[in-house]
């Protein structure tokens, strides 16, 4: 989405409307941001928190949704000793305010006019920008086929679980568990995502899908390497890595 530069760079005041728990460690913040210019699935925002003594600090967060005008959703996973994430995940209450600016980023995005099949591969809270792409797809009424492979430690760690269970037509969701699988007794034993997962639940490289991989550094390194090994063009693999913040 092309937003005039001056608009994107302006710090805006955002007010928390509601917070929704997603897992024991993550919650989604629904923020009201008057005049928000809109954004694309995959883009992020800069968030600024200021304490009463004037101390302030900034972080970047992926946007979790991409459709409602004047609203922004962020999903925040608490990290140990996280200066900003612990505030957003635990302390902030409805009516509280923060500042943000954006949207930022024009590479790790999906645009509805892109008609190639899409493979989304998420590790942990790396699902957040990919979920925004699914929301963009829905809002656009797109029929571009999407496949999502989502790696989580245990069934309780699935963010957006209900939404992913009821995925839109044309969206196939595969969960990969690394520590413990659901009780239903799936065939796949718990293990890290591997080439076989990408072959069975992804797209063959001949279809030239656009691949978006998001998660912790080690996860993204491993998945991107495996996709290259399977024959996907490196230029078609877009990555976003994150660390603690």
């Amino acid at each position, binding site marked *: 989405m092309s937003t005039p530069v001056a608009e994107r*760079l302006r710090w805006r005041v955002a007010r928390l409307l509601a917070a929704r728990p997603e897992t024991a460690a993550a919650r989604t913040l629904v923020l009201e941001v008057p005049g928000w210019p809109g954004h694309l699935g995959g883009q992020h925002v800069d968030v600024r928190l200021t*304490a009463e*003594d004037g101390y302030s600090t900034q972080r*970047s967060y992926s946007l979790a949704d991409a459709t409602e005008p004047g609203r922004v959703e962020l999903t925040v996973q608490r990290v140990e000793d996280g200066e900003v994430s612990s505030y957003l995940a635990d302390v*902030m209450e409805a009516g509280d*305010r*923060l500042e943000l600016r954006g949207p930022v980023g024009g590479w790790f995005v999906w645009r509805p006019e892109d008609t190639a099949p899409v493979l989304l591969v998420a590790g942990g809270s790396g699902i957040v920008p990919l979920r925004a792409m699914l929301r963009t797809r829905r809002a656009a009424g797109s029929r571009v086929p999407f496949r999502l492979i989502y790696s989580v430690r245990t069934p309780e760690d699935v963010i957006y679980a209900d939404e992913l269970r009821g995925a839109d037509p044309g969206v196939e969701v595969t969960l990969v568990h690394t520590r413990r699988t659901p009780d239903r007794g799936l065939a796949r034993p718990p293990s890290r995502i591997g080439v076989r997962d990408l072959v069975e639940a992804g797209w063959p490289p001949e279809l030239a899908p656009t691949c978006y991989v998001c998660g912790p550094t080690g996860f993204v390194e491993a998945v991107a390497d495996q996709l290259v090994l399977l024959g996907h063009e490196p230029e078609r693999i877009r990555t976003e890595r994150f660390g603690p913040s």
Partner: protein
Amino acid sequence: MAVVSRGFRGRPRNPDQKVPPGQYLTEDFPVLSAGPTPRVDRARWEFVVTTETGEKHRWSWRDLMALPAEQPTVDLHCVTKWSKLGTRWRGVSLAVLLADVPTAADYALVRCYGGYSTNLPLADLLDGRAWIAYQYDGRDLAPEHGGPARLLVPHLYLWKSAKWVRGIELRVREEQGFWERIGYHDYGDPWREQRYQGD
């Protein structure tokens, strides 16, 4: 006037910290790349400087190793907000590499294995604050951090320190690189918080 976030305290204040505005300190070394990590064989590695007239100057890995190395200790500032202080590198100064290259260009477009690119003024490569770095913290530079060799320009945001560097095109007019084309700053001075075009 900044808006106070109720209930936000933040970390203990440390007025001695040498961190630019909007940055926070990290102890680990996050990785940010736009795509898969390219695997580059040292035996086939080369670094090519192309002047504005099309003249090419080439260095093999062996050529690079034969040049005098420096061991800078520098602070890193990433546009995604983290800063890491006192990182130790080994590499060859661009001032050494470019010393005998005749040029009237003012700009550099840095090209990389894997297709990444970034732009900056040539002057910022010539004043002894920029290196082709091949060791980090006493070890060969890991592929995910740009190995076998990356550009290191620590006085600018870290996306200018292009990983997997392959060459530099010297240009009379500025041409934008990968992130610059999609809205990031042409210069990227962290102390002036030049994150995005227009900052």
